[in-house]
C-alpha cells in the first residue's frame, strides 16, 4: 500500500477546528490537484456539493468534467467508473447513503472486486466507492444501514472506515492512491465531529490496513471502528471509575484486517470485546472474535464477547437509541468478562 506524506501549501488562515466532512473534502481536493486522473462522480456531488457537502466546491474548482453530477442510477455510476478506470482514470464515486449503494452491488461484486484477478493483474481497478454509513442521525429507513459485512465478504475489495478527522483525510488520500478498489465507509454521524487538525499542516497519509491503539489499557481490549470509536472511548473513561483500564483498538481498515495489532493487544490484556453497530449474527464481530480466539486462545481469560446492533433491519429513528451499542451495553459486556469470578 502507498505511504507518503503530503506537504501542504502555507497556512492561509488561523487554524480552526475542522470537521470530518471538511477533511474528506480536502482529501479529494488535494488528490485532484495533484493528479489529473482523479475524478469525483455521483448524484448531487457537483452543484450541490453532496447532500452532506463533502464534495462542496470541487465542481467549481475543477470543472464538471472532474466532479460530475451523474444520472441517478448507482449501478450506472459505478459501472461507468469501471470503464473510466479501464482507461486510466481514478474515479472516486459517491453513493449518497448506505442503502442506496445496493443497486450497485452487482457491479461491485461481479466486476470491481474481480477485474484485477480476472485479468491476471493486467486490468486493476483503482477506484474508490465512498459510502456514508451507519445510524445515529435520525435518518428514515434506508438511510442508516451498516453494510460493511457485505463488502468485507467480497475478496478483492479493501474496506476502510475512519473514526477521526485526521484519519478521514489520511485514509481517503491512501484510498485514492491505492491501485485496488476501496470501499470507503464514512460514519455519517461523525461528519460533524471536530478536531484541531489543521488542513494547512503537513498531513500523514497512513497506509491502509493498520489498526491503531487509541487508548492504552491493561484490563481488556475493546476492538472497534468508525462510528463506535467515540462510544468505546467514552465507555473506557466510565470503566476507569470502576477500576477497569480498557485498551481501545481502532481498526480503521476492515480489509485488510490488522490481526497483528489486535492480537498483540488482546495478548496483553487477556480479554476482548468487539463493538460495532452492524448486526451481530454473521457480522464483522463474528469474524474478528473467531480470529482472536484462534490466535490468542491461551492468552484469553474469558470468551471474546460482541456488542453489536440487534439482528433486525435498521430500526426507525425514534427507536434507534435502543439498537445502537451505547456505553452501558459496553460496560455490561466488560463486567461479563470477569469470567473466573463468575464461574
Amino acid at each position, binding site marked *: 500500500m502507498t505511504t507518503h506524506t503530503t506537504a501542504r501549501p502555507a497556512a492561509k488562515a488561523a487554524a480552526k477546528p475542522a470537521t470530518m466532512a471538511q477533511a474528506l473534502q480536502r482529501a479529494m481536493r488535494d488528490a485532484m490537484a495533484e493528479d489529473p486522473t482523479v475524478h469525483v462522480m455521483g448524484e448531487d456531488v457537483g452543484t450541490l456539493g453532496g447532500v452532506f457537502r463533502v464534495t462542496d466546491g470541487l465542481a467549481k474548482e475543477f470543472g464538471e468534467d472532474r466532479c460530475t453530477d451523474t444520472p441517478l442510477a448507482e449501478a450506472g455510476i459505478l459501472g*461507468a467508473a469501471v470503464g473510466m*478506470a*479501464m482507461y486510466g482514470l481514478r474515479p472516486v464515486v459517491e453513493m449518497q447513503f448506505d442503502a442506496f449503494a445496493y443497486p450497485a452491488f452487482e457491479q461491485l461484486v*461481479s*466486476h470491481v472486486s474481480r*477485474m484485477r484477478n480476472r*485479468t*491476471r493483474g493486467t*486490468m486493476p481497478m483503482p477506484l474508490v466507492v465512498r459510502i456514508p454509513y451507519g445510524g445515529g442521525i435520525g435518518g428514515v429507513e434506508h438511510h442508516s444501514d451498516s453494510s460493511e459485512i457485505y463488502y468485507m465478504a467480497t475478496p478483492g475489495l479493501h474496506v476502510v472506515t475512519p473514526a477521526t478527522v485526521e484519519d478521514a483525510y489520511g485514509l481517503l488520500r491512501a484510498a485514492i492512491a491505492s491501485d485496488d478498489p476501496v470501499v470507503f465507509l464514512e460514519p455519517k454521524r461523525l461528519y460533524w465531529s471536530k478536531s484541531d487538525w489543521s488542513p494547512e499542516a503537513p498531513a500523514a497519509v497512513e497506509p491502509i490496513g493498520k489498526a491503531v491503539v487509541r487508548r492504552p489499557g491493561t484490563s481488556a481490549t475493546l476492538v472497534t471502528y468508525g462510528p463506535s470509536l467515540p462510544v468505546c472511548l467514552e465507555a473506557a473513561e466510565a470503566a476507569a471509575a470502576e477500576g477497569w483500564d480498557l485498551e481501545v483498538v481502532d481498526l480503521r481498515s476492515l480489509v485488510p484486517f490488522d490481526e497483528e495489532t489486535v492480537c498483540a493487544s488482546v495478548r496483553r490484556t487477556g480479554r476482548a470485546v468487539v463493538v460495532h453497530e452492524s448486526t451481530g449474527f454473521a457480522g464483522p464481530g463474528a469474524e474478528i472474535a473467531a480470529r482472536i480466539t484462534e490466535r490468542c486462545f491461551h492468552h484469553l481469560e474469558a470468551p471474546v464477547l460482541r456488542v453489536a446492533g440487534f439482528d433486525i433491519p435498521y430500526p426507525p429513528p425514534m427507536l434507534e437509541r435502543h439498537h445502537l451499542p451505547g456505553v452501558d451495553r459496553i460496560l455490561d459486556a466488560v463486567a461479563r468478562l470477569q469470567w473466573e469470578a463468575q464461574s
Partner: protein
Amino acid sequence: MQQRSSTVQEPPGAARDYRLTPPPAWQPRTDPAPLLPDAEPVRVLGTDAVADADPALLRRLYAELIRGRRYNAQATALTKQGRLAVYPSTTGQEACEVAAALALEERDWLFPSYRDTLAAVARGLDPVEALTLLRGDWHTGYDPHEHRIAPLSTPLATQLPHAVGLAHAARLKGDDVVALAMVGDGGTSEGDFHKALNFAAVWQAPVVFLVQNNGFAISVPLAKQTAAPSLAHKAVGYGMPGRLVDGNDAVAVHQVLTEAVTRARRGGGPTLVEAVTYRIDAHTNADDATRYRGDAEVETWRAHDPIVILERELTERGILDEDGRRAAAEDAEEMAARLRERMNADPVLDPMDLFAHVYAEKTAQLREQAAQLRAELDAESEA
C-alpha cells in the same frame, strides 16, 4: 360560523381576479422522429446497394464468415470432447460478430458478452486466448489493453456501463476512441442496459450498442422478453437513434455499424443498433432447443443463413469464384486444425496463481493461505 366568516377581510374583487396560473408550455427535449428506426431492417444483399460496396470488403466479410462458422463448429466439437466447459455458439449469427469486429479501428474498444468470442477472434485475438474463460483454465486469457477487448462478460449487460465509462474517459482525454458494446435480446431487459444507454445519451459518449436479437434468451422468446415494437425502438426513450438491421446480412450490419461508429467518433453520440438474427445452435451444449422451438422455424432461418446469402450474391456478381471459396475454406480449415491441436494440449496451471492477483499486494491473511497451499503442494509432490 356566520360571525367567523364575517371577520375575514377579503380584498375587493379577489375571487373574480383569481386565475389558475397556466403551466409552462411543455416541449419535447428532442424531436423523436429522427431517432426512430425504419419499419423494416436495413438490407443490402439482394438490393442494388451491393454495387456500391467495396469488393475487397465483401471478400473479407465472406472469408471471416467462413472462418467464423468453422470456429463455431470446432469449438462446439471441443465441448463434446470435454476440452471446453461450455461454448455458447454463434452459428447463424456470424455476420453480427464479424461485422462488429470489422467496423472498429484498432484504437477502438470492444465490450463482448460471453457469447461474443467470435467477434474477439475476428478482431485478431488468438483463438486459444479467446477460449480461456470457456476452457476453465483462467477467467480471461488475454491482456484487455493489448487488444482493446474487455473481458468477456458473463453477467448480462453489466459490461455496457463499462463501455460508456471508457468511451467517456477517452473523450475527456481527447482521444477519438469509440466503444462497441454487445448484448443479446435477453440482456436488454436488465437494469444495466437501461443505465448504460441513459448515461451514454446524457454524456453523449462515443458508444455503439449492438443488440444481437437472436430470438431467444436461452428458451424465452422475444415476445415474452419485451413489448416494444422492436428493440431498436428503445433508443428513442433515451434520446439516441435506433437502427434496425438484418443481422444475417453481413454487408448491411457492417454498413450500419460503421455509420454508427463514425457518428460516435465525430462527436455525434451513441447509437443503439438491433441486428435481427437467429441462433441456429442451442444456447449452449447444456440446452435442448427442441423443447422451445420447432424445426420449421429453424429451417426458415437456415434458408436465410448469412453465409448462404452472401455467397450467392457475391458469386452472382462475379466477386467470388470457385478459387475464392476454396481459399476461404482452406484458411478456415487450417485455423480449425491449429485450434484443435493447441486445445488438445493440457494447459499448464500454477495453483499459486490463485493468490497472485487478488490485490496488488497480498494481505497478511492471503500470505498465510498461500503458504498453506504451497506446503500442501510440496507434500503432494513428495508423496
